[in-house]
Each structure stands twice: as structure tokens, then as C-alpha cells.
């Protein structure tokens, strides 16, 4: 897990123009920003674009945002706001609501069929879908990063920092129990 101190060091170095530190920072924060943008119902291209725009805006503000916590909070808030605006505009642009309907469905994007390689993937997806939104968000993010940063996750999903570890354990335990009780999971 990234500590505030480690993020702070990366930030200081990135501010001084160290490309490798900037790369580390982007790598550490992008999975969460991606989740935030997708959570607003954006398609993949728009979500990728919104994440980029937030970083570009950050660069302009870097001199006035001092602490690592402020940087992550700022990035997350900006990504959410940009995504929201983008989404509003998409709805406005399509009077018959075509995109809006599609986008609403898209908030819980289904995995690519081609990646659902075995029966267990399909069983897991079925049980994953009925978890709470909070569980799904959290598990998607911790599945994506090796060292999830709890401060960043707390900021992104509006959860108290101290509740993330226990919530993660509870969500995972719930999913495990559902899978182990499912005869298809056991049989495959």
C-alpha cells in the first residue's frame, strides 16, 4: 500500500520533473480514476479522455496543491466532475435518449464475453452483480492494483479510511460464501 509519505516523495520528484516518479504516480492512481469515471456511466473512450484531462488540469495546479492527500483528492474530485459534465452533455445531445439509456446500463459494465473463459467466470459474475455497489467498486479496484492505497480509495468512494480493510474482507467473504454454496462453482 502506498503511504502518504511515499506518494509525497513521488509528488515532490514529479514536480521537479522526474519522469519515472510521474510514471509511478500515474500508474498508482489511474485504476481508481478509471473506476470513478466509469462509475459515472461513461463509455471507455470518454472515461479515458476524462482521466487524461484531469491529469492535464492537475499539472496546471501542481504548484498550489501541496500535500499528497490534497493531490489525490483533487484528482478524484476533478475526474468525477468532468465525467459528470461529459455525461450530462451526452444526454442533452441525444434528444431521443438513446445514449442515455445505453449509458445507464453501462454503469455496471459487463465483462467482455471473450474473457469469460470458463464456467467459473460466469458463476462469479452472477454472484458479483448482486453485491452492493460499494462492494463491487471496492473489489474492482483492489483487484486492479497490487498495492491499493486506502486513502485514495476512501476519497474516491466516500468511505471512512478505517472501514476499507474490514469492508473489503466482508465483501470478499460474502462472495466466497456464495461461490462455495453454488454447485456450478464446485463442479467446474
Amino acid at each position: 500500500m502506498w503511504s502518504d509519505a511515499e506518494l509525497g516523495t513521488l509528488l515532490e520528484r514529479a514536480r521537479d520533473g522526474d519522469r519515472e516518479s510521474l510514471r509511478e504516480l500515474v500508474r498508482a492512481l489511474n485504476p481508481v480514476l478509471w473506476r470513478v469515471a466509469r462509475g459515472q456511466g461513461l463509455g471507455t473512450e470518454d472515461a479515458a479522455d476524462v482521466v487524461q484531462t484531469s491529469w492535464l488540469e492537475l499539472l496546471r495546479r501542481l504548484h498550489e496543491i501541496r500535500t499528497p492527500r490534497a493531490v489525490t483528492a483533487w484528482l478524484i474530485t476533478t475526474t468525477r466532475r468532468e465525467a459528470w459534465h461529459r455525461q450530462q452533455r451526452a444526454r442533452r445531445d441525444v434528444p431521443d435518449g438513446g445514449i442515455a439509456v445505453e449509458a445507464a446500463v453501462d454503469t455496471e459494465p459487463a465483462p467482455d464475453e471473450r474473457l469469460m473463459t470458463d464456467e467459473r467466470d460466469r458463476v462469479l459474475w452472477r454472484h458479483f452483480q448482486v453485491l452492493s455497489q460499494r462492494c463491487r467498486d471496492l473489489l474492482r479496484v483492489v483487484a486492479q492494483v497490487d498495492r491499493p492505497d486506502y486513502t485514495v480509495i476512501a476519497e474516491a468512494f466516500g468511505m471512512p479510511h478505517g472501514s476499507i480493510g474490514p469492508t473489503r474482507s466482508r465483501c470478499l467473504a460474502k462472495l466466497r460464501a456464495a461461490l462455495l454454496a453454488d454447485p456450478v462453482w464446485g463442479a467446474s
Partner: protein
Amino acid sequence: MTDPLDDLDRDILHRIARYDPPPPDLDERVLFALALTGLEDEVARLAESAAPAARAGERARTITFDATSRTVMITVLERPDGLVRLDGWLAPVAALTVELRLPSPAPARTVTADESGRFVLDGVPHGLAQLVIHGTPRVVTPSLLL
């Protein structure tokens, strides 16, 4: 604290990781766009991206970027030889230098918009690119995937 993960937990998370991962090139796109962007730059936002329009056997799409000071519209035309042609237009109209940044080692392409704010960048390879409009302030777009 968090319970240690066992094999089943790891298997579950491994499968979930494939549900909706960020695009594999997202980090690269962000870093490419950040490379040149400076504190004084104005960031243009993707305003509109129109679906490919058929035009006598060619494919074209139109992309609009909005910044506070300026709007940049480009039409990306696929050439038969696998390269692309960009037809651009600046509003408000200005004869400014327009730079198309490409990933290194490819050199940036530079043109000057004419009196009506139009510019053409032809024979551009597919891949990442970023437009920089050298006005006051300088306007940069996010990375484009041509």
C-alpha cells in the same frame, strides 16, 4: 487489519480484474499528454466526436476540442496508404502556429493556420498525437488516438 488472502481469494480477484480494466495504454496516453504540458497552458476538452462518415470510399471523423480561449475542430481522414490527413479549423479565427506532437523519436509536425483559421497536416501516421496551438495562452489537447 485485512485478513491475508488465500488461493481462492486470489483466484476471485484475478477474475474480477478482467471485468473492466483501464485500457492498457491509458498510462501511456496520460504521460504522453503530460510530457509537454506546462503550467501556463490551457487544456482543451474533447467536446464532440462524430462517428465515421463515409465519403467516397474514405473514412473520416470529426473531433472538436473546447478550451476557454479557443475551439479546435479537426477532421481525420483515412488515406488509402494507411496514413491520415488532418483538416483543422481554429475559432476564433487566427493565423497561429499549430503543432502536432508525436511520440518520440518522431519529430513534431508544425503548420501555420491561414487567415481563415484553417490548417492541414497530411501524411500523419496512426497512433498517439497531441495538438498544441501556439497562441496566448497556449492551448493543448489531450492525447488523441489517430
